[in-house]
């Protein structure tokens, strides 16, 4: 067995891992290693060939591979080491056990670890659609990988379930390839992805978007022959008599992503049931000393630009921890989502002599117009801001100063419509 040592070990070489590695090196960590199970770096961005990345971080519209390449080049220039084809199988705090295609088993002993494993897609099993089990059912991300990296076309007539970004992006991609996209079917009464994607992926090609509709049955023996869809009521129950049959040979599921946290859970690291990812403080530190996390493993991000920002934060603090440069903790404040807020990240604000401003990221539970967003401490308002519109598909943020916070207090964020 091969043994390696480093200051900071990063699990996952997607945009989160690459940005964390670059930042850890810049912060002064001498040996920073990225462990990636794939045969190339870049994570999910490698298959996201569409434009729309970097609009806020670089102020340019890049494609996924271009965005990933920028961070890969920066991290390489800083002297980060990369181990490809290396799957982290197990961890004991900051001690990792990996399997590498050529080297076999490898152990990595690190002073700190950054979890950057990304997320995986929800599948049919997790949403339970009745009907037969024919071929021709894919998650949208799998279809994306097949078409954009492996040169495999998934079908000729496609129905997409879910109006998430991946589904909409695939609707456009398939249409450009000459595939007939029959409809995008969404159970919610609102779009779950970004408006920009509805305009450029669906409206541009006159692809119908059926809100408050779902697939009730899949039909087909060897291969999908079509799906029954129906309108749903407010309880999301299909309305009798509203069924219609859509002929198709392929169904794509774009029904959400789940943070990939098997390793995290194996360590007893606290998970936030609202995000499905580890609970963090503003330094991206998990409940386990020396273990940090960033990117989609924490909460599902719609914009990679936000991933880069939080990952730079994670890498910086993982390096400080490894170099024993962290401040003594004086306590913490818990962040709890209030009215119309689905979750807040970070879930905790660590109090230390530093008291630098903290940016809280959160999502609304439903789309709302003309809102006031308030942050309160133990019920007393400390910050408010207004927004013309909030949308569950688009992350909101608010910066607060922890200068006057005390150990044991609770911070809540509420969103309310003002009329």
């Amino acid at each position, binding site marked *: 067995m091969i043994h390696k040592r480093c200051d900071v070990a990063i699990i996952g070489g997607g945009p989160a891992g690459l940005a964390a590695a670059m930042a850890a090196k810049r912060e002064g960590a001498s040996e920073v290693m990225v462990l990636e199970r794939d045969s190339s770096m870049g994570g999910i961005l490698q298959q996201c*060939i569409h*434009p729309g990345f970097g609009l806020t971080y670089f102020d340019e519209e890049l*494609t996924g*591979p*271009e965005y990933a390449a920028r961070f890969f080049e920066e991290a390489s220039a800083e002297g980060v080491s990369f181990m490809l084809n290396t799957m982290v199988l197990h961890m004991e705090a900051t001690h990792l056990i990996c399997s590498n295609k050529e080297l076999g088993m490898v152990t990595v002993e690190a002073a700190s670890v950054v979890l950057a494993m990304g997320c995986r897609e929800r599948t049919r099993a997790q949403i339970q659609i009745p009907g037969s089990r024919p071929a021709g059912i894919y998650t949208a991300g799998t279809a994306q990988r097949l078409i954009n990296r492996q040169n495999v076309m998934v079908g000729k007539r496609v129905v997409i379930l879910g109006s998430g970004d991946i589904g909409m992006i695939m609707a456009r991609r398939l249409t450009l390839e000459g595939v007939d996209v029959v409809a995008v079917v969404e159970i919610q009464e609102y779009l779950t992805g970004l*408006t*920009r994607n509805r305009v450029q992926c669906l409206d*541009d090609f006159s692809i119908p978007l059926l809100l408050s509709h779902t697939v009730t049955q899949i039909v087909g023996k060897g291969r999908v022959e079509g799906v029954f869809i129906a309108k749903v009521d407010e309880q999301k129950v299909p309305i009798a008599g509203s069924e219609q049959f859509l002929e198709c040979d392929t169904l794509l599921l774009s029904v959400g992503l789940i943070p990939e946290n098997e390793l995290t859970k194996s360590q007893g690291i606290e998970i936030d049931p609202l995000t499905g990812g580890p609970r963090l403080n503003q330094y991206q530190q998990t409940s386990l000393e020396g273990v940090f996390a960033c990117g989609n493993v924490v909460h599902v991000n719609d914009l990679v630009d936000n991933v880069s920002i939080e990952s730079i934060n994670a890498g910086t603090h993982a390096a400080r921890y490894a170099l024993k440069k962290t401040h003594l903790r004086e306590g913490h404040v818990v962040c709890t989502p209030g009215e119309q807020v689905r979750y807040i990240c970070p879930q905790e604000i660590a109090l230390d002599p530093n008291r630098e401003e903290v940016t809280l990221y959160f999502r609304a539970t439903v789309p709302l117009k003309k809102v006031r967003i308030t942050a309160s401490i133990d019920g007393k308002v400390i910050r408010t801001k207004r927004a013309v519109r909030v949308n569950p598909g688009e992350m909101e943020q608010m910066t607060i100063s922890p200068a006057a916070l005390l150990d044991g207090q609770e911070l809540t964020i509420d969103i309310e419509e003002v009329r």
Partner: protein
Amino acid sequence: MEKVITCTVCPIGCEITVTGSEGRIEGMRGHACKRGIPFATDEFLLPKRILTTCVKLSGSDEPLLPVRSDKPIPKEKLFACMELAKTLEVSAPIGMGEVLIANILGLDCNLVATKSVTPRQ
């Protein structure tokens, strides 16, 4: 003619109603800020999009190379450009940003690689 355009400049996504005829704008309403004006103007007169797709790649471990237009192209030309891209086959090595089709369809923009690929070992 009246056209409703969803502004995508910021996440607010105003629905801007533009009235006019082909090539000429007479009125615009629904934009909450002035950044919506040039956006809706372009969308009404000549909507443009960046095209991204993949082209066949030989001499590398991967079968496909991701590509883009280096500038937005008129929306109605997307399919014609796709047809051209489908006929293209390139071989490694290729550098990111390398021009694969210059001045595609005379649109004053190039089809370029969005990834660097090295030859198969």
